[in-house]
């Protein structure tokens, strides 16, 4: 798909454009699922578990059912239906046991939200609390209670995942490359350490919302805030044993998602409530508290890394063990495990590698996809570890990274050979280092140190990620020409906020030679009116849908040229077009306008030819494979987007307080289709990454009750947390199979920011931290070499693991 076009030959791609979706957003006219009101619509509320693990002895709904205005009450007992993305392990409502704090055990649909809440309060549930398993490493132990004793009977995607029945292992991904023993034997130093991350919440500003209407004949319509309408439909039909033609999923605009809305969540519950309420539509809006405790989060990770390094600064071998805390259900965590398993060494060449990644069931909120899909979490460990390795051999950490980056000819963990079009991570590192004045302090910075009494530290880190998706992921774009020669595009990504719709529109406009203003993109997605797409995840939308857009544009033009050739009595190979008309190249005035042929051309006597112009473009990922279950070898990566962050921090060495002064982020995007959008992704993700670096994370008590379920106790960055200076840079090494050379960058900005902060703090004051987040008190504790407060956010001791 790469046209070797010089940037100045491009008219729409590569230009700063307003987004196609923001006029309605700034004027308050955009509608989201929660803005939909349907005639007769009922309101739902959920009864949730106060225990992390308990047997349900009895549920009494009789008082709730008698309440005036209650139209449906459901409990798990009557719903013997399991749902699941990769492992079908989750009942719609808990049956017999609850497996995490906040799990839904019963639900009500009523005329008003007040009645629904009152009814939920009247439901009595008797529990017998059971010992909960709350740590993924403990869950791995032989004596741990089993979260899913029935694991052996569950359906799962067998080609990709390996659950281990009789254990808490929902998936085990293995990777074996080279000869690990030989690699360690050849090393001069062995550097080994453990790094941990807590679970965190996505925090889309719009919580999950679903509306469903289950009509006679099992005709079901679902309006939902889901990222992936076709996947919702597919999983729904699988679990309810319904034909796909019976179920229609409509996704209007989405108020942020970040992976948390990628799977199937509230949809089955509202559907069964609607069925029980005689087909009246039922709406469920998750409260913020439910968003934290009932809906999924990002998995916690415990990552052990053992690296063999030579004196001259080359990594000779690396053994990696990941314990992913899946929480109560497998959801996406099994695939996060797989994807981070094959990427888990970062953008470095490891000649001899051995990796075991385990997805561990525990009695906590379940983990799902989250921007970065595991890479944010493991990059904390890897990029902290790279600094530790460099310190060990007394080499500058930037130089150590440069010596080990993947370069043309390097072989990845899965055996893929990097080529000159894969992207240039070394260049990204260099640009990041340059942007922060790495390795020295400027006169201004020295003066600042003197003035404030704080110490300034700097660090650079590198990152990579490829889309984690089935190797056969495909998509479609349909273009329809309107009567006036404008074009409407339909495809089934969802506009989660990332701006992909605008970028795809730019790509289509470029190929048609139309201005962007002539392209209308249909933003809400409807499985009944829009063509298939797998999901809006993985930073794959721009590449796959962009390519489909180019193919659709070519198809539309070829059909238009066919009609024009007939009218103009010319061969199609002699035709060209501009934004108004198709013309004969050697007689440019001999032309026909798009308007004249848009819906069929009529000769003067009324005789017609052609017909409404439609272009269809299908694209499927090329040449990818599953990875081998025993060795992890294969070709899973559609495109690697590389990047680097440079970070400057100032730290008070007495108190541990710190301020992030500057972050410079660099990504090799192949082609910046809309530079403003790229910058928006670069900054937005970086700040989200800083949030998880500085303060975010789930805190549980010892019984597994989640303690911080609101913004007061689980803070996310505000405008005041933005660094003083931000620089956004892109490198453009064109991707051969990317639309105009582009590759995705939606997730990458969040990756490795945490480690950049940790490394810069260590560079400034020597505080050595191996857990996230890095709260200011953690810096103080590390400086004083004290262990951290014992809760599940900071179970690791701090500063004493040299």
């Amino acid at each position, binding site marked *: 798909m790469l046209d070797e076009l010089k*940037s100045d030959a491009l008219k729409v791609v590569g230009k700063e454009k*307003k*987004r196609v979706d*923001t*006029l*309605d*957003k*700034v*004027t*308050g*006219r*955009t*509608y*989201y699922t*929660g*803005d939909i009101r349907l005639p007769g619509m009922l309101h739902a509320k959920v009864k949730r578990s106060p225990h992390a693990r308990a047997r349900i002895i009895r549920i009494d709904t009789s008082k709730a059912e008698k309440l005036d205005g209650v139209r449906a009450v459901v409990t798990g007992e009557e719903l013997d239906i399991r749902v699941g993305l990769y492992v079908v392990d989750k009942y719609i409502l808990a049956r017999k046991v609850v497996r995490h704090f906040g799990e839904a055990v019963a639900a009500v649909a009523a005329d008003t939200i*007040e009645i629904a809440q009152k009814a939920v309060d009247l439901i009595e549930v008797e529990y017998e609390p059971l010992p909960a398993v709350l740590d993924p490493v403990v869950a791995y132990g032989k004596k741990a209670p089993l979260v899913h004793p029935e694991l052996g009977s569950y359906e799962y995607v067998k080609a990709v995942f390996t659950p281990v029945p009789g254990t808490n292992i929902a998936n085990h991904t293995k990777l074996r490359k080279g000869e690990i023993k030989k690699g360690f034997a050849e090393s001069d130093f062995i550097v080994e350490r453990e790094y941990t991350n807590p679970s965190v919440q996505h*925090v*889309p*500003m*719009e*919580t999950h919302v679903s509306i469903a209407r289950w009509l006679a004949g099992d005709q079901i319509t679902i309006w939902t805030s889901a990222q992936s309408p076709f996947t919702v439909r597919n999983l729904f039909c699988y679990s309810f044993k319904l034909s796909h033609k019976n179920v229609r999923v409509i996704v209007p605009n*989405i*108020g*942020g*998602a*970040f992976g948390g809305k990628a799977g199937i969540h509230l949809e089955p519950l509202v559907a069964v409530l609607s069925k029980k309420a005689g087909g009246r539509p039922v709406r469920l809006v998750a*409260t*913020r508290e439910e968003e934290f405790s009932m809906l999924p989060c990002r998995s916690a990770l415990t990552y052990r890394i053992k690296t063999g390094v030579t004196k001259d600064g080359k990594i000779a071998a690396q053994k990696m063990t990941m314990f992913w805390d899946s929480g109560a259900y497998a959801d996406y965590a099994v695939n996060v495990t797989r994807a981070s398993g094959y990427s888990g060494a970062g953008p470095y060449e490891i000649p001899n590698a051995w990796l075991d990644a385990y997805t561990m069931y525990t009695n906590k909120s379940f983990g799902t996809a989250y921007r970065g899909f595991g890479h944010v979490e493991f990059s904390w460990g890897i990029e902290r570890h790279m600094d530790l390795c460099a310190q060990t051999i007394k080499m500058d950490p930037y130089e150590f990274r440069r010596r080990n980056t993947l370069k043309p000819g390097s072989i990845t963990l899965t055996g893929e050979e990097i080529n000159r079009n894969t992207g240039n991570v070394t*260049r990204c590192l260099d*640009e990041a280092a340059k942007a922060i004045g790495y390795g020295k302090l400027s006169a201004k910075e020295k003066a600042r140190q003197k003035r404030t009494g704080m110490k300034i530290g700097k660090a650079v880190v590198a990152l990579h990620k490829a889309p984690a998706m089935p190797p056969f992921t495909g998509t479609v774009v349909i273009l329809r020409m309107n009567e006036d020669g404008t074009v409407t595009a339909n495809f089934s990504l969802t506009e*989660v*906020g*990332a*701006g992909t719709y605008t970028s795809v529109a730019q790509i289509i406009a470029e190929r048609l030679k139309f201005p962007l203003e002539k392209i209308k993109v249909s933003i809400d997605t409807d499985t009944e009116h829009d063509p298939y797409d797998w999901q809006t995840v993985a930073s794959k939308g721009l590449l796959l849908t962009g390519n489909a857009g180019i193919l659709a544009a070519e198809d539309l033009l070829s059909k238009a040229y066919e009609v024009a050739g007939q009218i103009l009595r010319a061969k199609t190979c002699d035709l060209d077009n501009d934004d108004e008309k198709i013309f004969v190249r050697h007689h440019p005035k001999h032309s026909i306008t798009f308007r004249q042929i848009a819906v069929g051309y009529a000769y003067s006597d009324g005789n017609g030819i052609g017909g409404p112009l439609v272009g269809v473009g299908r694209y499927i990922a090329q040449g990818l494979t599953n990875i081998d279950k025993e060795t992890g070898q294969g070709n899973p990566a559609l495109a690697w987007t590389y990047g680097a962050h440079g970070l400057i921090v100032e730290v008070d060495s007495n108190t541990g307080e710190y301020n992030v002064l500057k972050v410079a982020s660099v990504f090799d995007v192949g082609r*910046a289709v809309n*530079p*403003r959008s*790229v*910058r*928006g992704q*670069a*900054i*937005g993700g*970086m*700040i*989200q990454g800083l949030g998880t670096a500085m303060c975010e994370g789930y805190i549980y008590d010892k019984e597994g009750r989640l303690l911080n379920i*609101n*913004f*007061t106790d689980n803070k996310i960055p*505000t*405008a*005041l947390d*933005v660094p003083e200076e*931000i620089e*956004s*840079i*892109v*490198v*453009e090494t064109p991707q051969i199979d990317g639309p105009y050379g582009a590759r995705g960058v939606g997730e990458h900005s969040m990756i490795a920011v945490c480690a950049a902060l940790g490394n810069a703090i260590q560079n400034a004051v020597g505080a050595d931290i191996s857990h996230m987040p890095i709260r200011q008190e953690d810096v103080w504790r590390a400086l004083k070499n004290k262990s951290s407060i014992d809760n599940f956010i900071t179970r690791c001791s701090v500063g004493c693991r040299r």
Partner: protein
Amino acid sequence: MKTIKVFVNGERYTRNIPEHITLLRFIRDELGLIGTKEGCGAGECGACTVTMNGRAVNSCMVLAVEADGARIETVEGETASTKPSKLQELFEEHHAVQCGFCTAGMIMSIKELLKNNPKPSVEEIKQGIEGNLCRCTGYQQIVEAVLDYTGQLESPGELKIVR
């Protein structure tokens, strides 16, 4: 039930409503002005910000009956007929919007800020929107849009491209 009279975006509304409903629900469910969003229902995120008698409030923390007789402005009032305001246009131009869910509240907070301080510094802008959480943009492009609006943007935010 209680009858209240409010002036929303310059229009008068008289409604008989339950005493317990919030101004946010009144605006959305009774008046159908869906531009104002609920992000937390607890006064923590600012998505529901409107101005009440010229002051920015979290409309989820105000009872509708407390707004009896008040002048309320919502994001819809910012747009004259079909034309977005200058501030709205600059939000678009600077990509100060991604998912859009915080945007209405953000714009209303900025309106109040600018009423009291027509040329706020970067720090003052950040303080002015501190109560409005945005998970998408990282705030930077919002700050740039306000700087541009107040004629203080020295150079537009740049994506440096290296080939």
